[in-house]
């Protein structure tokens, strides 16, 4: 019984994707990618989820994978650099959210507190869809999934059942706001092997060069104060410090500390052993070069020529996956073995000391994960149970060194330790059971539990006063939920989730310059836990698809960054003692809270017109720890203070019309209100204007045209009114008025055999 209703309420795809599919059915010449024989695993649909489809990526033309998430409810993208991006989900980011690629963890034990750049290292050309689950997800996915989970799904080969097919595809892309020039060549092939199996391959090579980002400057919300008109960062080309007022400045549009280069390569080989069994071998290589961190290039109040640059930011992900359906009482089983390398080479130009510092960090991760959905167990005509079980484990081992070279004498100094402790290891994983119970046509219950493990090992470094780490944690987490199809198409859902994050090697061992100051390790941290309560309502009809969620996340032992200038710095670590702000990580002494509401609504009008809007609000609060901030009007003083960088009220709207001729036009609005609720640590952060980040509303126009099956051109006129805007917590301002143009050309060569599906 539930299955019929579930097609609407509990279907395997999220509401956004469902709505898009209805539009797809109405449209012509959309990219058709046949579903894999074996269904891919998707995030839990009883939770608050949304999906960005390939089709939306082609329409929105995002600059990066993080950029692709800007229209998802409850997701807010922060950028410390033009070549970086970090997703806030329900007010949490970095190590408190989990990134997956094809179900494989991208997070490793060096993901740091606060925003990081690693979501940027997933090439959007290789992404077929991105699912976002808001709220905790540790039962299924393990540590870090406190605020939410992002799962990027890779593109798959286009299948042909008989004969052979090969389709070369060319992407060319350019922008005006940051002079991006680049593209990708891709091959998509499939066919029968001589031994009767079907094999498919999709892969490509890509690259781009991105220049300095142009856009109107964001001004401080109150330019008449001591903060002046311009926030500390970014610095602008042409800025003249000798002028009396901002109004006398020449047109400041070019943001220094932006631009980067990028190379990518990937290949995905899928062997269909049978109609229900697949073997996949895949490799994804991402290389980013010379990406400055904008807020440190130059740093606030620092010399004009000082800069922190990520000279190399690489990710290599290689994995093999075996997947099979309908055997031995198992509906679906998947086993993956993965190896991932994250490589980072930082260059810090300290011209005040005639010095160049280099940091080199490599994280190698070996992972194994097994998952199985058992066949549903029919208890009665109206009741059934479905059990999912699985286990996963990952092992990180680190290499980390630091050197500095005096530019005038050429002397090289090697530090006793790098940002991390060389040779550190971190083992993490767990096993889980998930249960879905369907009771009649109305009720569905979910329950899951995961015993987990996290083990950290690092040798000490007496010279720098770093103590050895031997820590073990064995947390148990779980979730439960109930959903009711109250009155179709309305459904009401309630979930409780208990997720965790064990302190990782970044928390326990790292020393680094961060936005607010110098951060050093705390080897005595405890795991943090998130208790999420969420109440949702869904409406799914032909013309209206809507989601509304109320949530409360209670963070227990929340690991927070605090300014503690009385902290005893480690020995021989002058970066710490000399820092204006000394940052330590501590477990908050009492519960932190994030409460909010988020929703999305999509209206589908006759004539292939659709309107989609999202809204998100989150209010955070936690115990005040660390130093008070004096003289900052925006600082909320008292015993309870906001958590760092909590996004302001924000939302989006997208209007789209698609004509059967292949023309599609639309417009998009992104907006956010001013965020003045700042944590104490935010006041020391150059990325955040002194009295809060001003609100904004930005309009973009979009258009695309598919000329037959082989050519598509998509254009976005971004920031139509050239509005100054900055996403809260970012170093860079949004791009000014400009064009993004992408051209796709492809041609499928198909053998004379009968073909089934899979054409452009």
């Amino acid at each position, binding site marked *: 019984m539930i299955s019929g209703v579930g097609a609407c309420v509990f279907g395997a795809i999220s509401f956004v994707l469902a709505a898009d599919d209805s539009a797809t059915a109405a449209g012509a010449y959309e990219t058709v990618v046949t579903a894999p024989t074996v269904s891919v695993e998707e995030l839990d649909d009883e939770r608050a989820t949304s999906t960005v489809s390939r089709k939306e990526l082609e329409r929105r033309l995002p600059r990066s994978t993080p950029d692709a998430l800007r229209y998802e409810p409850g997701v807010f993208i922060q950028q410390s650099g033009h070549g970086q991006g970090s997703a806030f989900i329900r007010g949490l980011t970095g190590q408190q959210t989990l990134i997956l690629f094809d179900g494989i963890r991208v997070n490793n034990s060096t993901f740091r507190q606060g925003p990081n750049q690693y979501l940027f290292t997933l090439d959007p050309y290789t992404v077929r869809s991105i699912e976002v689950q808001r709220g905790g997800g540790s039962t299924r996915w393990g540590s870090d999934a406190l605020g939410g989970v992002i799962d990027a799904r890779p593109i798959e080969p286009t299948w042909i059942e008989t004969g052979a097919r090969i389709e070369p595809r060319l992407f060319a892309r350019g922008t005006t706001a940051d002079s991006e020039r680049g593209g990708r060549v891709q091959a998509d092939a499939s066919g029968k092997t001589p031994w009767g199996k079907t094999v498919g391959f999709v892969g490509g090579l890509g690259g781009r060069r991105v220049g300095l980002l142009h856009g109107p400057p964001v001004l401080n919300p109150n330019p008449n104060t001591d903060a002046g008109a311009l926030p500390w960062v970014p610095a602008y080309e042409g800025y003249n410090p000798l002028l009396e007022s901002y109004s006398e400045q020449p047109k400041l549009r070019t943001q220094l500390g932006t631009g980067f280069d990028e190379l990518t390569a990937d290949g995905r080989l899928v062997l269909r052993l049978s109609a229900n069994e697949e073997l996949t071998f895949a490799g994804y290589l991402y290389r980013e070069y010379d990406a400055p961190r904008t807020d440190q290039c130059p740093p606030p109040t620092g010399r004009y020529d000082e800069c922190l640059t990520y000279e190399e930011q690489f990710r290599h992900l290689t994995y093999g996956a075996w997947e099979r359906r309908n055997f031995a009482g198992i509906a679906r089983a998947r086993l993956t073995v993965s190896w991932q390398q994250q490589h980072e080479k930082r260059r810090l130009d*300290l011209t*005040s000391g005639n010095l160049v510092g280099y940091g080199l960090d490599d994280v190698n991760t070996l992972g194994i994960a097994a998952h199985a959905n058992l066949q549903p167990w029919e208890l009665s005509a109206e009741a059934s149970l479905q059990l999912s079980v699985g286990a996963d484990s990952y092992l990180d081992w680190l290499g980390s060194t630091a050197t500095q070279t005096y530019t005038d004498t050429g002397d090289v100094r090697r530090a006793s330790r790098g940002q991390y402790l060389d040779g550190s290891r971190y083992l993490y994983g767990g096993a889980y059971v998930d249960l879905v119970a369907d009771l009649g046509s109305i009720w569905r219950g979910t329950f899951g539990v995961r015993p987990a493990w996290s083990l950290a090992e690092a040798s000490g470094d007496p010279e720098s006063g770093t103590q050895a780490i031997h820590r073990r944690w064995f947390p148990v987490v779980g979730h439960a939920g109930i959903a009711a199809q109250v009155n179709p198409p309305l459904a009401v859902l309630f979930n409780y989730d208990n997720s965790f994050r064990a302190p990782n090697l970044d928390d326990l061992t790292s020393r680094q310059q961060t936005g607010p100051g110098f951060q050093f390790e705390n080897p005595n941290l405890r795991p943090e836990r998130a208790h999420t309560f969420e109440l949702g309502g869904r409406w799914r009809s032909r013309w209206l698809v809507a989601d509304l969620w109320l949530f409360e996340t209670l963070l227990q032992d929340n690991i927070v960054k605090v300014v503690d200038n009385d902290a005893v710095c480690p020995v021989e670590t002058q970066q710490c*003692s*000399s820092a204006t702000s000394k940052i330590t990580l501590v477990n908050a002494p009492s519960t932190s809270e994030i409460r909010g509401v988020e929703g999305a609504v999509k209206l589908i009008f006759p004539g292939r017109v659709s309107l989609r809007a999202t809204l998100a609000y989150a209010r955070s609060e936690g115990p005040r720890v660390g130093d*008070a901030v004096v003289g900052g009007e925006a600082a909320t003083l008292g015993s309870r203070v906001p958590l760092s960088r909590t996004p302001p009220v924000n939302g989006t709207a997208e209007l789209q019309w698609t004509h059967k001729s292949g023309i599609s036009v639309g417009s998009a609005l992104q907006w956010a209100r001013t965020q003045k609720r700042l944590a104490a640590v935010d006041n020391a952060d150059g990325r955040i204007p002194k009295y809060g980040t001003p609100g904004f509303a930005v309009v973009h126009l979009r258009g695309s045209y598919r000329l037959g099956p082989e050519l598509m051109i998509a254009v976005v006129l971004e920031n139509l009114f050239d509005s100054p805007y900055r996403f809260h917590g970012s170093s860079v301002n949004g791009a000014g008025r400009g064009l993004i143009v992408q051209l796709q050309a492809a041609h499928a060569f198909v053998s004379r055999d009968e073909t089934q599906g899979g054409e452009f």
Partner: protein
Amino acid sequence: MKQEFAHWLAAVAIFFVAACGSDDDPMTVETPTCQYDSGLNGLECAGATYTEVLTACTPEATDYQPRNGVAGANGWPTCISDDNVYHLVGDSMPSAAARSIAFESMGQKLWKNPCAPSKEEFLSARDDYSVAEGLASRVARRQDISYPEVPGADKFACSSEGIPEAYPDRCAGPAKLKPIIDDAFVKGIGQQQPVVQAARIEAALLWFFYLSLPSEVWTCGFSNIRDCDSAVGYYTQLSARGAPTGLARYVAALGPETHNRIYDGLLAVRCWRDVDSEMPATAGASYYDLAQAQLDRAALRGIALIVRERIGKIGCVTGEAQQAQIEFTKVLGGLLNHAASSVDATMAETLKAYTDAPSTDAAAITNAQEALDQLFDCP
């Protein structure tokens, strides 16, 4: 056989002697044996000795005098400093104190080193100096607020490209001090007169610490109220009045009352920001002026005492040690010339003539010291 053994013994002795001057940490060597003696060890001479006598000096009528124990005296309101203790504006020790600590660490390796500093010691000291957010970062932006501001609304323009070259007096840190320090490190690492280079670094950094006092008080008024704490951090690492460190240690050793008057000035600054804690400061402009004047007068005398002592030492030593005192005097004397010219042009000329080209002539030394005594007589 006997001769061979003697050669072997000599080789071993040379090895150990040479080792002293290279990689050993002077802090851990109890009885240093130097390849090159710095010439400064245990330096005492009559020309450098000084006993501070200030019986002829009386504080200005408007000076804040917390040691008198009369709250609200001399036109000052009752304030947080009346208990004669510096109370931090912020919650904790400012990073300026760490830079003063780094200065002390550099001193152990360079100018307090009983041996001529080795290349490794210069490199290690440079590590202390160049660390992110350390001394180098602040030298590179330090302003001399006794000169007119760089035009324009940007009060931190000295960090901008081309500005230090265009406004070298105001942007004294990047325009005057940084080149001296960088050059001294390069030469010191290259072992060109290492004792001299150490002295140049010491003098330039003392100049930096002096500049930091009024500069931090200035920015305390409009940029960051905790910069008032930084002024104290640069002077004495936030140690108590009776336990001076950093620049304060230099001053207190030569002129205890001058040190106390500087400390009084810092308490006056704190009093000003207690009375007017707005950001930017508004109502207490007159107290700002009074506090800055009181502090600067005392601090200048403190620097004058240091220069006076070094001038005296020029006549007591020879060789590289003497050249070190000369270079020290030239560097730090350059700071005093500007202030001296506003007191007495003639005396200032006498002083400048000497500090520009210090000589070992006893009469010239005495004249220069007398000029200093008269120009900066009272703190």
